[in-house]
C-alpha cells in the first residue's frame, strides 16, 4: 500500500483529501498562507539573533545586495525584520562605526534562505533559517494602465489551456480547460474563483504535446471543447458523458473588443514569438482606416497563451504564464472608456 502521496506542489506529507481541498481553494488561500511563512521565518531568525550570547548593540543593520544575492520578494520583509529587532530592544543605528548585522534573503533552487551574520566578541555568529521556495509569492505586477482594466480571475500551478466565461451571467464564474495531475480536465469556478465542479475529459485522450492546444466555449450549462483533431461536448447540469467526435478544428479568430464608446472595435494583437519572455498585451483599431491610431498596451507577467472573448463585448479572458511564479494565470481584460 502506498503511504501518503506527495504531489509536486505539496512536498510535506498531507492527506489526499487535503490535497484536493487545497487544489479547490488554491486560487484564494495560497497568498495568505505564504505570507505567514515568511513572517514566521523572520520571527525565528530575529529570535535566534537576539539569543546570541554577548551581543550588544547598537548594531548597524545591512541588507546584503549584489551579485549572487537573488532578487528578494520586495522590501516589506526588511521592514518586518527591522521592526521585530526593535521590538526585542536590540538597538539599531546608522553610525558607520557600529558593528554590522548583515542580513540577506536569497532564493536557492528549492529554498529561501534567510541569513543573519554579526560579529560578537571575537568571532562571527551566523544564523540561518530556510523555508520552501514555493512558499513565498512574489508581489503582484503593478496595476495596469487605466485604459485597459486587468483583473486576475484564476491562477494555478498546473497548465491552463483556455478559459471561458459562463455565459448565463447569473453566477459570474468561468470554465477552464486545464491539465490536472496530467489529465485534461474541464473545471467550473464560481465568482470567487473556487472550483465547483471538475470533469475529466478522458474520451479526448490527447497525444502528449509540448504545445497542447484546446479551446472551450460554454453556453449555459453546455460546454464544447475543441482539440487538435476532435471536438468534445458535455453538460455540467446533467453530468452527462463526455462525447467526442473527429473534426478538423477551426480555431478561434482574432478577438475584437468593442468598448461602449467606440463601436468600430479594437482587435487584440499578440506577439506570440517566444514563451521565454513576458508579452505586451496590445489592442489596435480593428479598422484599417484607423491604422495610424495608437495602440493601447498593458504588460503581462508572461507570454499570452490564449484569448477568449466574453459576453461583455469590451472584455476578454487572457491566459498567460507568469514567468515570475511559474503559475498559469487567467486575466479578465476590459477595454474601458476614458482615461
Amino acid at each position, binding site marked *: 500500500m*502506498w*503511504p501518503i*502521496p*506527495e*504531489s*509536486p*506542489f505539496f*512536498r510535506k*506529507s498531507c492527506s489526499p483529501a487535503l490535497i484536493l481541498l487545497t487544489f479547490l481553494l488554491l486560487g484564494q488561500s495560497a497568498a495568505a498562507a505564504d505570507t505567514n511563512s515568511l513572517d514566521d521565518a523572520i520571527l525565528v531568525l530575529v529570535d535566534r539573533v537576539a539569543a546570541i550570547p554577548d551581543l550588544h548593540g547598537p548594531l548597524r543593520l545591512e541588507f*546584503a545586495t*549584489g*551579485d*549572487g*544575492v537573488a532578487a528578494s520578494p520586495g522590501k516589506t520583509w526588511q521592514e518586518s525584520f527591522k521592526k521585530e529587532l526593535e521590538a526585542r530592544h536590540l538597538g539599531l543605528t546608522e553610525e558607520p562605526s557600529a558593528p554590522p548585522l548583515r542580513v*540577506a534573503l*536569497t*532564493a*536557492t*533552487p*528549492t*529554498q*529561501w*534562505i534567510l*541569513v543573519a*551574520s554579526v560579529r560578537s566578541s571575537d568571532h*562571527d555568529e*551566523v544564523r*540561518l533559517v*530556510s523555508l*520552501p*521556495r*514555493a512558499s513565498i509569492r512574489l508581489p503582484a505586477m503593478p496595476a495596469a494602465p487605466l485604459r485597459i482594466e486587468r483583473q486576475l480571475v484564476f491562477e494555478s500551478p498546473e497548465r491552463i489551456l*483556455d478559459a471561458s466565461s459562463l455565459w448565463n451571467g447569473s453566477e459570474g464564474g468561468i470554465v477552464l480547460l486545464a491539465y490536472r495531475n*496530467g489529465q485534461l480536465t474541464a473545471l467550473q469556478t464560481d465568482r470567487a474563483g473556487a472550483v465547483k465542479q471538475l470533469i475529466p475529459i478522458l474520451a479526448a485522450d490527447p497525444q*502528449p*504535446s*509540448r*504545445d497542447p*492546444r*484546446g*479551446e472551450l466555449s460554454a453556453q449555459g450549462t453546455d460546454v464544447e471543447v*475543441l482539440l487538435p483533431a476532435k471536438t468534445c461536448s458535455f453538460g455540467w447540469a446533467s453530468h452527462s458523458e463526455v462525447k467526442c467526435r473527429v473534426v478538423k478544428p477551426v*480555431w*478561434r479568430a*482574432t478577438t475584437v473588443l468593442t468598448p461602449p464608446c467606440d463601436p468600430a472595435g479594437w*482587435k*487584440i*494583437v*499578440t506577439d*506570440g*514569438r*517566444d*514563451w*521565454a519572455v513576458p508579452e505586451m498585451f496590445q489592442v489596435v483599431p480593428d479598422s484599417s482606416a484607423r491604422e495610424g491610431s495608437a495602440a493601447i498596451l498593458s504588460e503581462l507577467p508572461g507570454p499570452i*497563451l*490564449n*484569448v477568449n472573448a466574453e459576453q461583455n463585448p469590451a472584455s476578454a479572458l487572457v491566459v498567460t504564464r507568469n514567468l515570475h*511564479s*511559474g*503559475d498559469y494565470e487567467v486575466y479578465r481584460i476590459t477595454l474601458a472608456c476614458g482615461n
Partner: protein
Amino acid sequence: MELHVASVSLDPRDWRVGSTAAAEDERLATLIYDRLVTLDDYGRFQPALAAEWSHDAAEKNWQFKLRPGVKFSNGSLLTSSDVAKALQGLLPPPLQIIPGDNNLTIRSSRPVPDLLEQLASGRYFVFRKNPDGTLLGTGPFYLAENIPAQPAEANPAALKPAHLKFRANEEAWAGRPFVDTVEVTLGAPGLRQILDLQVGRADLVEIAPDLVRKARQDNLRVWRSAPATLLALRFDNSQHAASDDRLREAIDLALDRDTMANVLLQREAQPATALLPQWLTGYAFIFGSPMNLNRAREIRAALPSNEAGTAEPLRLRVDAPGDVMKLLGERVAVNARQANLAVQVTPHAAQANPPASPNPGSVAAGLHLVAWHYDSLSPRAELEALVSQLYQKDAFDTFPAYADPDKLYAEERRLLEQRRLLPLIALPDYVGIGPAVRNWSPAPWGEWRLADVWLEASESTTSGAPGESSGTNPKDRAPGVRP
C-alpha cells in the same frame, strides 16, 4: 550547436563528478534521457518518470510511482527494473533501490531529505544499456548518428571534429520536441564558434569566458548561467610545504580574487570566497575576501628558510585545460611573489608546448589549479562530492548527514578554515544564441532545455539539410492569438 569538448560520453556511469567534461556529457544526456523528477524555475519539483512520490517521517524510505506507459526510444516499455538498474549504479552506496510493480523504493540508513534535489540533477538519469552496449533513453531525442573525430580528407594531418545527430523522439511521453534534429559539433575552437554563430552555421555555441566580451561587441545574443564552475587552488602534501598551515594561510591572504575576476576575466567571473555558490546555499556572501598582503608577508617572514615557497619554489600544476586556467595560474604566482613566496607554474599537459617536462604528472606539485563544475541541486550532496574528490580522505569522515543549512554552513566554514582548497573565482556558463532561436529558457543553474526550443523559420539561416534543423513556431498554430 557547437561545444568545446572534443568527445563526449553518454553513459552517466563513466562521468567524473565535478569535471567540466561531465558537465558537457550531462548537457547532451538531457536530450536523450529523463530523470525521475525535475525541478522547475520556481522551486517546485515536477513529476517526470515518477508520477508521484512519498516518504516516511524519517525521510529514510522514499517511494516513487512510475508514470505508466513510458517507452524507450526503440518502443520498449520502461520498467521499474530499468530504473533500479540505472540508478543503483549511480546513487551512493547508503541508498538502496528496490523495484516493485510499477513503483520503486529507495531506502537509506540515514535520512535523505534532499533526495529529490539529488534525483532532479546531476547524473541521475534513467537509461537502459543494451547487450550490444548501446544506450537507450526515454527523452525527447534519440542519438541517430555518432561520428567520431577523424582525419580530414583534404588534409589528413588535421582532424575533422566529432559530430553527433539527435533526432526527435516522436513517442516521447512529454511530447515531441519542437525541433526535428539537433546536430552537435564537438571540439570547435572558440573563435570559430563565434564566427559560425555570426554567419548562421550554428544556432547555439558555448562561449569561453575570455571571448564573451568579443561576442558582445559583435552584438551576439549571449546568455549566462549562475556561476557554474569553481576555479580553486588545491594543496597537495606531495610537496611537504603544502602541509604547513602558515604557508597555506599566507598564500590565501595574498590572493587578489577581485583582480582575477574583474581584470583578467573582464567581469565575466565572480570572486569566490566560498566552496559552494551563493545561488545554491544562500550564505556564501558571508565569507568575505580574506586578502591581506601585509599579514601574508608577516607570515612568510616567520616561515623556516628551507621551506618550499621560500628556498625552492612551490610548484603549481594547472590541472585543467584552457587559456583562462593558464592566465589564472600565472596570476596566482604573481600574487604569491607579492608576499615574497615563490610559486612556479607548470602548465596543463595539453598546453605544455614544448612540454614542461617529459611527464608533467611525475613532478611533485604542492599546489594544483583545479576546476570544479557544480553538478547537484543539493548543496549537501555537492559539498560532499567536492570534498570526496578534492580533499584528503580524513576531511569528510565527519561529514554531516543532514541537509540542515546551519550544519552545512558550519561544515563549509570548517573546510575553508583548513585552507586545503582555496576558492579563487566562479565562472558562469556562457552560450551564444542565434537570432532564430525561440523559447530559450534554460534553468538558472545552467541546464539547457532544448526540447522546448523552436526556431523562427523565416530568420533561420542554419546550414545543413533543409527542414531538418528548422523547427516550427507553435505560436503560429496557437488558437485565438493570431493578429
